[in-house]
């Protein structure tokens, strides 16, 4: 009997050893993560914002077999897990839509402005025409209003910001006969379009686009890619303007074939423009320092070029780190593979560590934001073959998990 008790005790102890309770999600899971969102068909990342509660807001395009492409808003908690009630999809009368830019409103409503495109079928053909599609939502993603704007041409929004006074400013491109040209337009708080006084009308426009807007509080800077005369590549064009919407233009590139991607405010009146320079050796990152006086860009100079042998580096966004440096998010392409790139840059514009994320397949870095703990969230698109999905990475201050 005693022996039986002894052996039973041993067995019970071993059973306890073997079977332990699963822990709840620990706080450490918020420190670093990789998350995927979407349906893994043809999803595209658009924009990410860090929310005041530590969570994240993502906009993009999700594709499903049943509904086709839809503009999507995903709100997550600080762990990157989708909150109840999300994702929310926004369409116009059953038409296919997509999202590329997101503004997290700072008016106390907790709402969002999503902008992208809506595709309208052209009567009597298989073709579709893209118009601008804007949705204002509440904090819970309910639609406050939604509008679409367009012409007989294709319009697409790439970036948007809150305007200095009121309303929202949109940057993108307008495409006609396969050629794209700059497009910048404003809409009121209620969603009505504001007539823009800017008309670039480049007769050589082929791949021109307004890529990024920065609201400094008293002026806007718009970084664009414009076509050179006679199709000799593209240049970086910096537009500066205020709510009058009468821009001054400064061409940064000279003999180089470059594309403007993003602009970052430095000290008073100084800015840093991120571009991609394409040469015979591939693509490299280029940083231009800009000095301004009022709304006029008075001086510009190359601060740094960053390249990597055997790889194409393509920057998309640049932000300040929690310390004194900067970090560029984008894509590194080696052969047929693409990975998300985080390229650190010191305050003296020296290239620092670069971190790549990805393996086989194609990862594209789309946006980056600084988080409350000094780390970063990087939004991207993870593609393989004909399928793609939205990815969000949370890293520490060194770009590591």
């Amino acid at each position, binding site marked *: 009997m005693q022996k039986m008790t002894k*052996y039973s005790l041993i067995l019970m102890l*071993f059973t306890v050893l073997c079977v332990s309770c699963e822990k709840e999600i620990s706080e450490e899971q918020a420190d670093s993560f990789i998350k995927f969102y979407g*349906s893994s068909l043809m999803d595209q990342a658009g924009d990410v914002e860090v929310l005041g509660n530590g969570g994240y807001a993502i906009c993009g395009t999700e594709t499903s077999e049943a509904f086709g492409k839809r503009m999507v808003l995903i709100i997550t908690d600080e762990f990157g897990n989708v909150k109840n009630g999300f994702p929310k999809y926004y369409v116009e009368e059953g038409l296919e839509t997509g999202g590329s830019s997101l503004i997290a409103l700072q008016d106390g409503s907790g709402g969002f402005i999503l902008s992208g495109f809506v595709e309208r079928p052209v009567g009597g053909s298989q073709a579709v025409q893209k118009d601008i599609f804007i949705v204002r939502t509440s904090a819970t993603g309910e639609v406050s209003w939604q509008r679409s704007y367009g012409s007989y041409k294709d319009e697409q929004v790439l970036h948007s910001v809150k305007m200095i006074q009121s309303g929202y400013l949109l940057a993108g491109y307008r495409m006609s006969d396969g050629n794209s040209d700059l497009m910048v337009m404003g809409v009121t708080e209620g969603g009505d379009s504001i007539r823009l006084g800017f008309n670039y009308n480049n007769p050589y426009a082929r791949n021109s686009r307004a890529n990024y807007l920065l609201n400094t509080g008293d002026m806007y800077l718009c970084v664009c890619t414009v076509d050179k005369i006679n199709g000799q590549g593209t240049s970086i064009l910096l537009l500066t303007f205020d709510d009058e919407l009468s821009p001054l233009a400064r061409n940064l590139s000279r003999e180089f074939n470059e594309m403007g991607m993003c602009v970052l405010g430095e000290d008073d009146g100084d800015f840093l423009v991120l571009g991609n320079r394409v040469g015979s050796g591939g693509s490299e990152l280029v940083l231009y320092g800009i000095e301004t006086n009022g709304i006029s860009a008075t001086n510009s100079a190359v601060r740094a070029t960053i390249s990597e042998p055997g790889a194409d580096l393509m920057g998309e966004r640049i932000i300040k780190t929690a310390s004194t440096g900067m970090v560029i998010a984008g894509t590194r392409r080696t052969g047929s593979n693409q990975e998300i790139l985080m390229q650190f840059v010191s305050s003296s514009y020296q290239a620092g560590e670069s971190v790549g994320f990805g393996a086989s397949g194609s990862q594209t870095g789309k946006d980056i934001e600084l988080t409350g703990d000094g780390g970063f969230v990087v939004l991207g698109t993870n593609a393989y073959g004909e399928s793609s*999905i939205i990815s969000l990475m949370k890293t520490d201050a060194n770009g590591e998990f």
Partner: protein
Amino acid sequence: MIKGLLNLLNRLFVLSLFFLGLQTAAAQELVNCTYLLEDAKEAYEAGMVELVPELLLECIQTNGLSGEAKKEAYKLVINSYLFDYMSAEADSLMDGFVSEFPDYRAAGSDPQEFVTLLDAHLLALGIDPTQIPADSTETARRGLFQKFRERVITKGAGEYGNTLGFTVGVPLTLPYTLERYSLGDPTGDESHFGLLPGLMGGVEANLILRRKLEASFGLIYDMSRFTYSATPVSSVSYRYVEAQHQVLLPLSLFYKFNPENRKICYYLRGGFIPSYLIHATGKGTRTSGGSQNELDIEATEITDSRVNLNLDALLGFGIRIPLNNAFIFTEMRLSSRLTRANQDGTRYPDNDLTWLLYHVDSDFKINKISLCGGVCWDLTKE
């Protein structure tokens, strides 16, 4: 013909005596053990050896006999067992005989099989069977008996000493989740581990500590496999298969329930398994949009994502079946990892498992159920 008839009558007579004896024993219990001994002698001489244990065992076990009569009863039953090729029973009873009569030495009239078994038992107890006890007085006999009782017996006659052998087996690995991670939402990710058979084999040495206790040391190669299925995103699920190649150094103690049994010996094993992970790989298949779109990820090196030095608690239950100078065994082992199996810092490696399969390690430990068997040879037997 007449001889045969006489033999038959003789048997019938002895048989009738036997039944009479049984009835008597039942009625008068142990009072008549002396008569039963006489009956048993007659049965033995008549060649009806199978009746002898039934006549005398109870008398021996309940001390219904004593002194020379008991000694004679022991010898009759042991010889009957040996005659009937019941060596395990003979071996077991010889234990009792030697413990009660440690100064008995084989006589010229004892059958050779009896002599061999007796000598083996005496040798196992460290007594020289050729040495006649110098002082066979009652006091000396009691002293020897006392000494016998106090001896730490590590090995009975016919039992095994230190052994060395090999073991092979099939481990079934069943990890369990400590904290769930997912590239989707871990609370909605319907993930679970699954069993897959592996393979193990190696050498094992068993060292006798006491008669019922052995220490065991092993060196075992172990290839364990398991699966992990998850649905990180609503339209995407995957099945991940991991293979771990390890060297195990099991250190354990055996407790043998019946070491004297020559047919089957049951034992319990407990101990620890320090192990070193040599190599680990992961592969899998991702399915999206139903089953129409499958993507296979080839085996990918993940050794850096695993803890290399591990420690498991071990519990086992098995049986040993004796052979000549060896035994075969089969055992069910349960082991539970005391340390976590995955590394924290390499949870999101830059490989296809993360970016194409959408797999991420949850924090997990590993339990194993192994069915193994093998052969061990007695190093002390000639």
